[in-house]
């Protein structure tokens, strides 16, 4: 918007900011009671959201939401993180160009960072990150899963239908399912 100087009457906000707000306001009554096995999670900082636009405060909000949902003790951060985090290699159109080998080489740093956390799940709030990190897990044999944030929020709230668990592993396919269908 700034680049093209187009006049407009609305403001742009990130959904992450609202997740945090709604949790604080008690509209989303999330908790980590479902995570009885203490499954570990880490989170990718989307470059576009954190380093390139909003900065560390949104990265903090993201962590606030993640911790509220999976449990503070079950969150393991990457090193480095927030504005200093590495790009996963899925952005900038890399996923849509023919340089696959180079893209996977680019992502090796991200893969190593994730393995270092020991997390079983990576939360990727951006679609490019999601696709790229899944491919990294497969290519380098990481054994971790990649999931969206909305999936975990709904899982925690007990409102995640069995059809909405595409990116969850077997360990969470039946966790906290809503009341049976009619």
């Amino acid at each position, binding site marked *: 918007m700034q680049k093209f100087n187009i006049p407009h009457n*609305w403001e742009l906000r990130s959904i992450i900011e609202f997740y945090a707000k709604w949790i604080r306001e008690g509209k989303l009554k999330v908790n980590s009671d479902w995570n009885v096995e203490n499954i570990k999670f880490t989170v990718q900082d989307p470059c576009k959201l954190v380093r390139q636009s909003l900065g560390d405060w949104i990265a903090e909000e993201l962590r606030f939401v993640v911790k509220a949902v999976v449990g503070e003790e079950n969150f393991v951060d990457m090193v480095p993180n927030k504005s200093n985090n590495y790009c996963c290699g899925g952005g900038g159109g890399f996923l849509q160009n023919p340089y696959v080998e180079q893209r996977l080489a680019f992502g090796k740093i991200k893969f190593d960072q994730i393995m270092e956390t020991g997390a079983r799940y990576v939360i990727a709030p951006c679609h490019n990150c999601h696709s790229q990190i899944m491919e990294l897990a497969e290519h380098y044999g990481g054994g971790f899963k990649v999931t969206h944030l909305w999936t975990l929020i709904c899982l925690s709230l007990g409102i995640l239908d069995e059809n909405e668990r595409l990116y969850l592993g077997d360990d969470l396919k039946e966790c906290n399912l809503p009341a049976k269908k009619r």
Partner: protein
Amino acid sequence: MTAEAIHLEEQVARFKERVQGLLPDGGNLDMCLTCGTCSGGCPASGLEGMDPRKFLRMVALGLDEEVLSTPWVWMCTQCERCMHACPMKINIPRLVYEARSNWPRDQRPRGIRESCDFHVQRGGAMGIPKEDWIFVVEDVLEEVRQNQPGWEKLQAPIDKKGTGYYLNQNSREPVTEPEEMVPLWKILHLAGVDWTYSSEMWGGENYCMFLGDDDAWAKIVATQSRIIDDLGCHTFIETE
């Protein structure tokens, strides 16, 4: 110096000068300390024998032929980590962007180009027609209302006026995994948010930016902006 040599020099400095003209204070391109901080933290370092410091240096030296032909510009993700870490805050990703823009459009990577074109023509980078987008949303919503107890009143409006909140949607879900849209709808419902998608220019991605196509990018932004204003929304919630 002969006239020919001067002419040559003008040629070589062209890209650098053009970019300098675009950046505030000329972008500090000559202020590089060659400290290598940028390259040390760049995951694209080493690909195609290139790294950000080297790329900047080649731009500064006017080695335009290589700068403007290396496929490395498609391997830098424009993540801006180099600039963030650089003591002189030199905007290398912007140089990369301008180099991308300089490629003849039909020689830029086809996948990105097609995604951009689809987005301009059909509103989302996967290229499904508007009718299909509307159908998928309505179909998935109906399915949830009927099969999931407690969600009979779930909403997923398109082009609803005066809701206040406008949402975009990454075009991958409606095409390949429509159920993945539902969790967000449920969250919005619980939060009591009155919101809407749009039937036109609804995609949340922006490949025209990645393609280095300023005109197409501007067109998408302008159209989406007008749509949001016409719907009377005060907030655009970016879902990516």
